[in-house]
């Protein structure tokens, strides 16, 4: 039986992060993309806590706390923007929102 070290957590976090990154790039629904960002943030949080445990230091947990707060703020503003955009065009497809193209 393997022993549970922080490496396990870190590998799991890397997996979640990669999945989130791929999802962000592949999915076209703005909301789903947003969720993928949250996935990535969570993967990072997990990494922070794992290192915090591994190094026996509160620093990682403190970082997670701030990530949580910032994520909350980000979602509030992001969803506000999405709602404002979707009021104009009845679509959540991010490819439709390309007014800023060169």
């Amino acid at each position, binding site marked *: 039986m393997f022993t549970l070290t922080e490496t396990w957590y870190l590998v799991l976090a890397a997996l979640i992060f990669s999945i989130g990154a791929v999802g*962000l790039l592949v999915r*076209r629904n703005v909301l789903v*993309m947003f969720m993928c960002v949250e996935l990535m943030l969570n993967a990072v949080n997990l990494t922070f806590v794992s290192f915090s445990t591994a190094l026996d230091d509160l620093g990682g947990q403190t970082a997670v706390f701030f990530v949580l707060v910032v994520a909350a703020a980000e979602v509030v503003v992001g969803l506000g923007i999405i709602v404002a955009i979707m009021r104009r065009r009845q679509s959540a497809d991010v*490819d439709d929102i*390309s007014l*800023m*193209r*060169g």
Partner: protein
Amino acid sequence: MTAVWLIPALPLLGFVTLVVLGRKFGDPGAGIFAACMVGLSFLGTLGVFAHLLSLPHEERAISQTLFTWISSGSFKVSIGFLADPLSITMCLFITGIGALIHIYSVGYMKGDPKFSKFFVYLNLFVASMLLLVLGDNLLLTFLGWEGVGACSYLLISFWFTDPKNASAGKKAFVTNRVGDFGFMLATFLVWVTLGTVNYEQIRPLAPGLAAGTATAIALLFFLGATGKSAQLPLFVWLPDAMAGPTPVSALIHAATMVTAGVYLLTRLSPIMAEAGWANDVVAWVGALTALVAACAAIAQNDIKKVLAYSTVSQLGYMFLAVGTQSYVAAVFHMITHASFKALLFLGSGSVIHAMAHEQDMRKYGNLRKYLPITYATFMVGWLAIAGIPPLSGFWSKDEILAGVFNAKTFGNLALWVIGMAVALLTAFYMTRQVIMTFFGEEKWRHAEVDAHGHELHADEEDAVDDHDHHHLTPDHTPHESPISMTLPLVVLAGAAAVAGLLNLPFGDPLKFLEHWLEPTIVGEHELPPGWVQALLSLAAVAVAVIGILGARAVYFQKKVDPAKIEKPVFAHAWYIDETYAKFMGGPGETAFEDVAQFDQKIVDGAVNGIAGGTVGLGNRLKGLQTGLVRTYGLGMAIGAVALLAYVVTRIGG
């Protein structure tokens, strides 16, 4: 004494204030304000001067750094001022004579539609000149150098509605550019070789310069000086510059700006001391300029042109002194020349003012009857420049000639002979001018006469100051100028008379100027022993007297036809100007056309090409900006991968 910065700041304040409020201040107001600013600056200079005097001999230098101007890598330049005996001496007569000329201008420029603008320029000029002199590094000096150049340009073409005035301004500007080029190259060279442009830092480093480098630097700086100080071959702009208002001629083109070159070389005496044969070049150029200009001066009919060539010639003396390492003599002559030449210019201005802006001496005569104060003061100036003791010109000129006689310069005796010849010519043409102006019959009463039947009118057209268009009529009665114009004349006459006291050759304790400047100047020169000096002085006086008598014989007693002396070649200043014009119009023009083509095709082409290329590239690249968030995201992700890859490879190592 931390108020050094106030000296240039006050005229600058005047400039800024007048730019904004000049029109509000109105006709006399703006002028009085400007004069007050320069006067206050003079008082400040006096304060600093007194402070310096109170210091021990060796510590007479105040350097004050205000702030860092440019800081780029190891290149660091501050806005800082260096008040030492040399710069304060310069400041004293810049602000002193400047203040007098400001006062004079209030009278002279009365009623001019651009009255306040004139004082804007004058104040800016004084500020720039003070910056030039007080700046503690080459770059700041260059700033002042360009500032005075710009002001000179603006003032020469002050009445720019006349195309001749405008072109005279342009000529001065362009000719000066050639010299500035030398200044800049020299500054770069100093920076590259010494790693600093600060005078106080240059001073200890200069002896370490290679002889060749020092020579190159000195020659390049001298090129700059020939432009600003109107030496061969760049002197051609100064006679034309007389198109400007007469106070300008007095202040800028006689007393202050044109001495900037002398100041520069004196300031850089540590480098000049290492420069070897460059000093010979300076001396010879100075001597030849003095001769050429003196020759030209005897054939001019425009009262101001005579003075202009005279100025060129006297500047030649100064460079002769610099070239023979007699810096003290150069500065001494600079001071005396500043006072008597300003006096002469202002006197001529007074005459012109009285004669309804007629500048042709052939239409003058017997003016001593109408202009007693002008006449009296002009006499002082005349005797001073002619080198009659005990007036100031004698002492300074004598010291230069004595220095040349004993110098180790190549061909020093030849130089001395030239100097003596120039002294003779100086006495001659000045006497000629005085006689034509103040003695004889009242020639303007004869309608349109050409008393001497000259075929050539010696460019009289060029210099006619016709900014107001009432011409000299036969029934004109000259009248003395207002007090604001005569007062400076009297003061300057006093100065011109006694300025010689600054540095009397009769014994070491009497050489005030030499002791005063000692800590600033590097370079040794030995005066000949006392009895030789006495003989030389006697010779000089004799030469001056001969010149005066000769002129008296020709123009007063009319024993010789003046036409025999006033050769066209002299009137045209050896055709140097014409040669330039011919060259510029012929092969020069084609060359310039080619350069212009090059500029258009290659330089502009490069600039436009880069711009066009950027536009084209942008047009191609804007396709990348799809507006699609996911594309951007992909870009970011790829970038992240690259970063990660970099980090990972670093970890391994």
